[in-house]
């Protein structure tokens, strides 16, 4: 195929070149619009990119990034040899998968439900309330959760008062992942719903009117008007979420977990944090892990793109 392409190119090089120049000239405003953004990427993302080489190096402070000695694949070998690394990788995938199934759709559902509410004032107040928890940091939330779910917390007091047995919610391997899911759902759903609510406002209200006159019920309106109106954006956010599957909520886990649940709660980021915080950190190793995460994320994202194109007719790009 590549050969065919080259051949075609060679057939009419002059015309092709001219057309390219014309295309470029026609798109001059697009290039102009791109300049500020590209400058940003060039200066703030590509200038430090030379740091990637640390993944194959052993960093020495006095030699700098470029001068530090090459050590081949040693950093990768070191990290892949750790049993805890694989455990945390597994947890990352499981927790991110659970987030995808349970947390990802919830803001969409919220937005759709809000669209069905006609009490304007109530709706606006509720929307504001739902964004509140986004402003509480995980540090603060973890102390609130301890007050609620700890051994002497509210929930256990209620359980005991009703004659039940105390449940150690925060140190229970079976419960911990669900705790992550629910706390995330609780904290970010209202905030993430803003995007979908904004998308829904772009839907022509006349469509709803017409549909109602034609006898469509609520479900039909959602299925045939609201959903098509937001599916493009949902596809995009879904693929983006898959493309960041290796990020399963670093700050959240770091603040909520404890040694009793490391086995089920330790994700890649927290694992790296722990091995580099307690001991001499190895910038080489952390760069190597970053590379690994990037590659996995990129591969997953491209796969999601391909699958989405095949079954959904559109993807992210």
């Amino acid at each position, binding site marked *: 195929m590549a050969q065919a392409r080259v051949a075609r190119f060679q057939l009419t090089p002059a015309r092709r070149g001219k057309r390219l120049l014309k295309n470029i000239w026609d798109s001059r405003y697009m290039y102009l619009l791109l300049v500020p953004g590209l400058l940003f990427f060039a200066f703030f993302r590509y200038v430090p*990119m*030379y740091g990637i080489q640390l993944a194959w190096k052993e*960093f020495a402070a*006095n030699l*700098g990034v*470029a001068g530090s000695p090459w050590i081949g694949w040693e950093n990768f070998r070191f990290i892949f040899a750790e049993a805890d690394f694989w455990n945390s990788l597994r947890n990352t995938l499981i927790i991110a998968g659970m987030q995808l199934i349970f947390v990802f759709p919830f803001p969409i559902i919220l937005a759709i439900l809000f669209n069905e509410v006609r009490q304007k004032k109530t709706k606006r107040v509720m929307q504001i309330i739902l964004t509140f928890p986004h402003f509480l940091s995980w540090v603060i939330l973890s102390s609130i959760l301890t007050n609620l779910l*700890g051994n*002497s917390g509210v929930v256990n007091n209620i359980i005991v008062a009703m004659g039940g047995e105390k449940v150690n919610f925060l*140190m229970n391997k079976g419960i911990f992942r669900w705790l992550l899911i629910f706390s995330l759902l609780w904290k970010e759903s209202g905030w993430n719903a803003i995007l979908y609510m904004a998308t829904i406002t772009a839907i022509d209200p006349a469509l709803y009117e017409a549909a109602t006159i034609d006898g469509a019920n609520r479900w039909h309106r959602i299925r045939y008007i609201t959903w098509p109106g937001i599916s493009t954006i949902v596809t995009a956010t879904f693929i983006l979420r898959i493309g960041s599957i290796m990020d399963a909520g670093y700050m959240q886990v770091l603040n909520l977990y404890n*040694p009793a649940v490391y086995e089920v709660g330790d994700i890649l980021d927290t694992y790296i944090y722990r091995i580099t915080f307690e001991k001499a950190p190895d910038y080489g190793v952390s760069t190597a892990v970053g590379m690994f995460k990037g590659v996995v994320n990129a591969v997953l994202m491209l796969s999601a793109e391909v699958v989405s194109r095949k079954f959904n007719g559109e993807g992210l790009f």
Partner: protein
Amino acid sequence: MTRRIVRWIALVTALCALLLAGCSPTATEPAESPAQTDGQTGSEASSPAEDGAYTPDFSEKLTISSNVQNAEAVPGTALWDYFQEKFNVEMELIPMTFNERHEKARLWVSSGDMPDLMWMDLDESMFAEYANWVNQGMFQAYPAMAELEAKWPNIAANYNIESNVGDELMTINGAQYAHPCLRNNPEYDYMSGMSWMYRRDWAKALGLYQEGDIYTWDEWVALNKAFVEQDPGGNGAGKTIGMGTELFYFPNAFGIYQTSAEYGYGAFSPKDGEYVWTAARPETLEGLMIAKDLYDQGIIWPDNPLGQTPDDTYKAGLMGSVFNNFDVGRVHSMRKALKENFPDIDENEAGALAFVIGPDGTMWCKQSQCYWGAVVMSANIGEAKMTRWLDMLDWMLSEEGTYFRAYGIEGTDWEYDENGEVKCLWPESTLLPGTQQSPYPDNSGSWFNWYAAGISNEQAPNVTYPEQYVEDTNYKYEFLRDNGFMRTFDYESSYLSAENKNKSGNFTTEVSDKMIELLTTASAEELPTLWNEWIASMEPKVQPVLDELNSMIEEIPTESEPKVYTK
């Protein structure tokens, strides 16, 4: 489409590879300067003391940067203005928090952007890196002892404090690169304050109080069980907690410290002439089982592993006993809060210090390491700034400077009375009769103490502490020193810098994580098996470190002989 994007990504990756190669020569620049100073440090150390007296010269105004906790609270106080004016310096304070101390030090040193003076915590986890950086020429050496004695005698004297066991270890390539600050209680052989505080008033109410606050292990457990079950404080059913401790000491405080006599050594301890992994010793499991029993009985604070501090809970009157580092500062903070929260109680009774004999019959105490904190100078600091820093440091360590750090400015905050004794002029405290209150905002003194040294009670008594608090704390130190068994701190094994040890650390976090996991999730029957399995699984990682210790440390210490205390 996707295929084309994949192809583009491949192209971009290739471009980046080119970029990497392209950037290499320029990227070396920032790191070059520190390396050059290696020679300079040599000449500095060897310059002989000048003849005649040394007179400091403050004519040039200097700006010196240094990192400190609570930087936002320091500027603007009268003390700070006085100090900067006196030395004609402008101090640039770079904020950091205690949590970030290691990360920031690493970032600054690695990027060649460290402050002129950098406060560091040279604990075991940091020391190997510190030694590396010294060898890489990142720091400026302090002048040799002869020069210090001639020009800055107070600094020299500070180095020469007796029983300052860590100094030898801290000397690298024949020079000192760190000024030691914040040392612990030299008067009690660096004994750490680790001990119990408990509700003596509750013990008396329950009829379980023991004369002199001395408890055998069984009495102690029974007392705490009674706290939980009988609720002497009237907190309501299920609300009173037995024992709690800082996460740092959890669960070691509840049995493991008491059974494993070698625990004070840290992660590795001597046995039959060689180092073994302390966690793998049978005594550790024995102690863990004691803790497990206490946990299952509900005597230990169940939320302790969540990383909450026990102090707040104790201050709120919900806890029977707490294990922590009870130096006079913490005793003061606990008792003062108890007094504030419950004005009717006697805080000395509610926050009494206990002496608990372990199951093995010993009453132990622990030696804490010195060089808890240290000040290093950037290799780029330059002669003028270094001299000014040494002048400032020397003054801060002098008698006048010590009073300045303790009380403030002479004439305003303190004066010599007719007998030549120092008298602090701070206002009386309204809460604790007989004590005085600092007129300066919180933390205003922290830079001085962080960068110079701690102040002992003999140098300048802390006037905010009621006498009873100080007496009780000192009595505890004396009693433990005379009757207890001191677990000495093993500098050799803790600070050894070797390839595997630097990479794997000393496993203390892994050990306590595993202990917490088993304590909270395993049953008492399965715990020993799970523990032993885990110990065995760690073997391949631990053994190389042990091999390094055993081959590199020439004189392996002998096992300690616990001193049994009989009531």
